[in-house]
């Protein structure tokens, strides 16, 4: 892996700011507080600083739950826009006509850190009831290079904090450390290679002085991986491939003679979670490639469509759980695994929850990777009759078959070259994150209620070319797609409520003690009652919500923040299923609400 480091040019503005800060220091204001340095202790104990939002998924367990209570069931009706800030990053590049916003803001001590689709990082001072840009770090992403192999949009889901650095990714494969005070780039390193079809859209996960990076590109014939970079030495600590090498365990699940494994996909583009009790990173793995021609790659195709548990120090795989073996549907399991502890008859059950593109929600015992329960969370599933209650595998799964057909009449295959499936290939649940209320033990899933039509293309090895699509077909959208927020009672594994929405949920969830927040690609941000899902408040942003809400406090006041700017895969590939959304304009704006 190539590495670019050393001094990087500093923008004039950043220089000026650095000077200003130094002057402030000289005037007796200490520029850097120890409390501003993020360390493992703070990352482990985010509940001690409820006003901040330090992790991409709020805590290591991925709960996206805030204990702040100023905005609650009774007061939420008074929620109003406090301030907004226009961002940039909607420029075209590659096959994309514009970028969008999918990020979760990070909040620390009254400052917000957000990204736009091309990976610019913005530090915003949120003190005093308004937002002021402190600095912007523009990584000058190579748009043509990266944008041509980004399957699903010009996306960047946000930053992480470590020490006095802001850690971020770029679509063209870099991990960048930016000085939190000045906006100056401290160092950067190439982690992914767009020449191989690899790009990065996820936010980094920070574990013990390492940045964990996932990769996208299963539509371009990559071999997926999860990589850890030491944030002091800037060196790679480990890189675990999600597709085994020849002869490694799991390689027997690729039974073809084409070496399909070499370009087998298994992307990892959604930030994972971490269980400090067992020092385990849990990360979701995406679809195998080619997506829809599963006869090209007979076998179960490990570790695609799986949840993987990795030893944090070595990256070694501790266990895996595969949801859709030999997937013919593009049913990624790239989603975050939410870690929850539920009282059980023989002590607490330690679960990992995942809501899959295939329409099923799963609880796995995270100590050993065993199936606990699973249920469909979408209204319509046509590809399987359901899950085996013991194994959690689709009932039709036959371990003796090398090419799975599930319910053959609807499953894309070489003998069923055009077919309609539910859920459609976007899910189910895509990357927009779930949220979990640990008091109510309710888990909220942002749902795409969908069917779509798949056309299969028979693949041959000569069609595999670097930086070209390797999908074995493609979807079209003859059906209207809607959405819902679906709540699951984690103690029973049953659906506790469903609020249907006119449009798919492309943004994700935030939970507070008695509310849940979410948005719609048609523009609305809304607050729902945590127990009944009844809508209590709504505001139309006039843009398309494609990012999750979060909450923080500053000057003793609680705020709700959300990025607004429709981009991603939807408005290019799936818009025909939601024709009204053609009216939504590209945009790039941060909305912040308060009472």
């Amino acid at each position, binding site marked *: 892996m190539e590495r670019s480091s050393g001094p990087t040019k500093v923008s004039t503005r950043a220089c000026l700011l650095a000077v200003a800060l130094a002057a402030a220091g000289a005037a007796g204001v200490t520029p850097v507080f120890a409390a501003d340095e993020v360390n493992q202790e703070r990352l482990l104990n985010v509940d001690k600083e409820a006003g901040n939002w330090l992790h991409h998924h709020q805590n290591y367990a991925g709960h996206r739950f805030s204990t702040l209570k100023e905005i609650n069931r009774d007061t939420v009706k008074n929620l109003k826009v406090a301030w907004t800030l226009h961002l940039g990053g909607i420029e075209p590049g*590659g*096959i*994309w*006509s514009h970028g969008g916003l999918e990020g979760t803001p990070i909040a620390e001590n009254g400052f917000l850190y957000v990204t736009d689709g091309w990976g610019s990082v913005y530090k915003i001072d949120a003190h005093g009831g308004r937002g002021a840009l402190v600095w912007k770090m523009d990584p000058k992403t*190579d*748009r*043509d*290079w990266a944008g*041509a192999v980004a*399957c*699903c949009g010009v996306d960047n889901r946000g930053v992480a904090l470590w020490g006095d650095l802001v850690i971020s990714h770029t679509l*063209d494969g870099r991990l960048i450390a930016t000085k939190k005070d000045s906006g100056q780039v401290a160092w950067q390193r190439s982690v992914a290679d*767009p*020449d*191989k*079809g690899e790009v990065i859209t996820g936010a980094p996960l920070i574990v013990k002085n390492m940045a964990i990076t996932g990769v996208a590109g299963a*539509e371009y*014939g*990559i*071999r997926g991986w999860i990589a850890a970079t030491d944030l002091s030495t800037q060196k790679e600590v*480990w*890189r675990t*491939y999600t597709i*085994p*090498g020849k002869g*490694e365990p799991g390689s027997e699940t690729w039974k073809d003679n084409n*070496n399909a494994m*070499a*370009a087998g996909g298994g992307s990892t583009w959604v930030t994972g979670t971490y269980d400090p009790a067992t020092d385990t990173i849990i990360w979701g793995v995406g679809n195998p490639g080619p997506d829809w021609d599963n006869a090209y790659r007979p076998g179960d195709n490990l570790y695609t469509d799986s949840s993987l548990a990795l030893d944090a120090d070595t990256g070694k795989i501790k266990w895996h759980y595969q949801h859709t073996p030999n997937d013919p549907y593009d049913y990624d399991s790239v989603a975050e695994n939410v870690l929850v502890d539920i009282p059980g008859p023989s002590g607490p059950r330690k679960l990992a929850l995942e809501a899959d593109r295939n329409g099923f929600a799963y609880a796995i015992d995270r100590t050993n990777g065993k199936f606990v329960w699973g249920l469909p969370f979408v209204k319509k599933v046509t590809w399987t009759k359901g899950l085996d209650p013991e194994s959690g595998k689709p009932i039709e799964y036959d371990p003796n078959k090398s090419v799975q057909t599930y319910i053959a009449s609807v499953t894309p295959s070489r003998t069923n070259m*055009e*077919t*309609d499936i539910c859920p459609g290939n976007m899910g189910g649940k895509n990357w927009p994150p779930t949220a979990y209320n640990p008091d109510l033990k309710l888990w909220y899933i942002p749902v795409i209620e969908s069917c779509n*039509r798949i*056309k299969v*293309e028979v693949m041959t090895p000569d069609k*595999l*070319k*670097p*930086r*070209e*699509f390797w*999908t*074995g*077909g*493609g*979807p*079209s959208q*003859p059906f209207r797609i809607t959405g819902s927020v679906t709540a699951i009672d984690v103690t029973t594994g049953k659906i506790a409520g469903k609020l249907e929405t006119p449009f798919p949920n492309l943004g994700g969830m935030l939970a507070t003690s008695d509310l849940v927040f979410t948005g719609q690609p048609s523009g609305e941000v809304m607050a729902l009652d945590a127990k009944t899902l009844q809508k209590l408040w709504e505001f139309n942003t006039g843009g398309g919500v494609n990012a999750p809400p979060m909450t923080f406090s500053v000057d003793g006041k609680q705020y709700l923040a959300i990025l607004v700017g429709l981009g991603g*895969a939807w408005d*290019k*590939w799936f818009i*025909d299923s939601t024709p009204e959304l053609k009216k939504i304009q590209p945009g790039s704006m941060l909305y912040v609400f308060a009472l």
Partner: protein
Amino acid sequence: MMMSNKLPAAGMLLVSVVALNFSAYGQSAQVSDPTSAGKAVFGRANCMGCHKWHGNGGGGYGGDALSLRRTELTREQIIETVGCGRPGTGMPFFVRGAYDEVKCFDMNRQDAGPQMPPEGGTFLRPKDIEAVADYVIAHIKGAGEPTYAECVAFFSSSSRVCDVYKAESQKPDHATANTGKSQ
């Protein structure tokens, strides 16, 4: 349950519309460098969003945009296809008023019904459509696999987008480099 929206083969359609009068597009405009104007249209109208910069298209999330390298269409047919799109497929129409004031394949919007092709992200003037057709004929139609030289000619930026073609011409076994070795 599945309703077929299959169309008669594209070739048949084209035969049936040969009579379509596109002479409104007139004589080739006097552009000093017609193919570079066409290249600009190829980018601006986002032909490359579906057919890629090299015109080879390819399957994928957007469905199958046909290869313009392997197209057998004539200049006139390309002009028709760009102006009217192709009913029942993802190929959009780029002429303002297509299927309304401008008749396409002898159909209006109502006749086309569910076969109505999508509307392009931008409308093109007849002159631009001719220019892009000229560009396709001159630089894309009939060309083999995309090369480094073609790529740098297309992109005038310092992007690394073309590096992969350079690498390929240097090491012909590039495909195996893509397999990645386990660490």
